[in-house]
């Protein structure tokens, strides 16, 4: 079965790519706003359905719609953030817990809304790319790379690089990092916390929605798909270290590889168990994530 080794690695990387896309925005939102958004899967679902309908109506390659989805959902997120901010900055009770409950409720609401509007059937976004694959062979070894997954990996890496550039090289990024470090001090330095938070939330929602389109091309979508991706992104972000953005790609790829190797070489029934064990072990040794840099 050594013959499958290159394939196992490639498959793992591809799965990792998809995981990056669903977790990177989530990590950003947590790092800056300290909010665990349980609705992340639902943003993915809503984005996927927007992509689905746009493609159905116009029959244009869905990946061209990624910017449209990003802008639209970015705007929704931007406008929506003040609501979460109100909950999060409340004086009574435990605001962090309230925010958690709030986003959980949001997730339930979106799911119900999705079931009512989109119905309960599974769908898939028709993409020309999802049909093709590249095959490489040398000697006994071979690798099949599904085009759509390759695109997904490239997209994930691009987003990661762009986000890093945004955070490290721009004034906006500086403001965001300052906010993440110390809200009060940043405010004293003249940073508009509310507006910056709104932008961050907008970016996060936009990225998540775009990932939805990609997931819709690779797998299938349904109004209830959210929960699965919420759990996954939560895993990855915890593994990477809560709020530590640069850890996300590594954690995502690690999980992807674990999954791929288990499916190919061991009993597929134990794949999820393996993922849990790794998460547990990492948290036991280093509660701040793989790199010890989480919050």
């Amino acid at each position, binding site marked *: 079965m050594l013959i*499958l080794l290159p394939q196992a690695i490639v498959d793992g990387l591809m799965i990792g790519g998809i995981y990056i896309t669903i977790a990177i925005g989530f990590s950003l939102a947590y790092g800056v706003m300290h909010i665990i958004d349980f609705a992340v899967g639902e943003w993915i679902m809503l984005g996927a359905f927007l992509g689905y309908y746009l493609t159905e109506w116009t029959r244009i390659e869905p990946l061209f719609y990624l910017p449209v989805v990003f802008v639209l959902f970015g705007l929704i997120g931007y406008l929506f953030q003040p609501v979460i901010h109100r909950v999060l900055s409340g004086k009574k009770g435990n605001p962090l817990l309230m925010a958690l409950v709030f986003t959980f409720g949001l997730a339930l609401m979106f799911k119900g809304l999705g079931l009512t509007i989109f119905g309960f059937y599974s769908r898939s976004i028709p993409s020309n790319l999802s049909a093709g694959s590249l095959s490489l062979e040398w000697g006994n070894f071979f690798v099949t790379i599904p085009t759509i997954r390759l695109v997904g990996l490239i997209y994930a890496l691009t987003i990661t690089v762009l986000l890093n550039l945004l955070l490290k090289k721009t004034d906006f990024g500086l403001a965001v990092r300052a906010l993440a470090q110390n809200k009060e001090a940043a405010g004293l330095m003249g940073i508009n916390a509310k507006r910056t938070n709104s932008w961050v939330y907008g970016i996060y929602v936009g990225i998540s929605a775009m990932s939805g389109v990609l997931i819709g091309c690779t*797998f299938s979508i349904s*109004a209830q798909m959210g929960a699965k991706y919420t759990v996954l992104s939560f895993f990855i972000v915890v593994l990477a270290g809560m709020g530590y953005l640069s850890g996300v790609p590594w954690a995502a790829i690690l999980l992807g590889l674990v999954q791929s190797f288990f499916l*190919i070489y061991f009993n597929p029934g134990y794949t999820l168990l393996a993922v849990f064990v790794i998460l547990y072990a990492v948290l036991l040794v280093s509660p701040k994530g793989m790199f010890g840099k989480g919050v």
Partner: protein
Amino acid sequence: MMKRGLLTVMALALIAAGPALAQDRDFYKVGVITSLSGDLATGGNVTKRGYDLWAQAVNDEGGIEIDGKKYKVQLFYTDAQSKPDQGASGAERLATQEKVDFVLGPYSSGVTLASAPVLEKYKIPMVTGSAESPLIWEQKFKYTFGTIPPVNYTGATPIETIRSLEPTPKTAVILGSNDTFSKATAEAFQAAAEEKGIKVLKFNIVPTGQDLTPFMSAVKVLRPDLVAFGGHDEELINLVKSLRQINYTPKALLMHYGVTEPAFVESLGADAEGVFGGSVWTETVHAEAEILWKDAMTYAKAAEDAFGVAADYTQAGSSTAGIAFQAALMKIGAAPPLSDDERDALVQALEEIDLKTFYGRLKFATEGQYYHANIGITPLTVQIQNGKTVIVGPEKDAEADPIYPLKPWDQR
């Protein structure tokens, strides 16, 4: 003190009046347990359509006729949320609070297995229109019946059909999702394949909702002639997409339930072509009925008119569950509400049913491993051809020749 005394009297009066209120009811209270949300919402909603359609058809005729008087039916839903425990507590609620006369059963075997013991306790008969795991019938529940035969009764038929094709498939990879129904399906496929001399190269139960692409890469190396998969709708769609992405086309691809669901063809388009499935009913099946809809086509049309979507065998099976009760009630002549004795008589009547319906012959087994499952019906092999579900086996029921081997994905 005075106040508390008054409250007690009022409460007592209510308790006394309760049964009296329940007494003069001129309709049947029908409980329905099904999953309207969660992973199994698709199938759950399909069963709901089946049950609703039956209730509507019966009420359009004025109701079920008992001693010259017609009694309507009214459905009381409980959402099992795709979770067995929710199904069980739903059953409890239907029995103790709603006090239903009988129950139309859940979608999915797992929920059925959890709800059946509860209804057994309260002695409330249930006919389920969509549970296919053999485990249910092995438990020999007295009050539970099912209109769809279990997969170990139906699963062999598609394997037989595929085995008879040229060039003969010699090897197979069989996998199933990790839930009650899908596991049973995979095991039924495995047993049938081994019996027919198809070598099973790999047999695996995989967790639900997993990305199976790496697994299929490993399968690709084995180059099996047949890939057979037990799973639910979304998983089937993902599996076909996985196979297509790694560009491996086996000679035959067999899935059980879900292939006949309209969403399968709709989401996969040309990739759905040629996929085999197992079924017990399609709208073109020959079935002359003596009750309600006169044949399969009439039912299919009624379903299309009501919901705008083609009916599949789960929906038909669910409507038939209603018909089973209807026929049994007419036989024992019990008007609502049903007493405990009448419920027992209803079970007796269900056991004795031998009825021609639009769904085919309805006859519940009264002994053996299929105890209380419908064994009156012939299992069919179906295949997606030109976007439609077509019967391709067994030979006497076939409408078209099977397409075999599968056309490679990249030539579609």
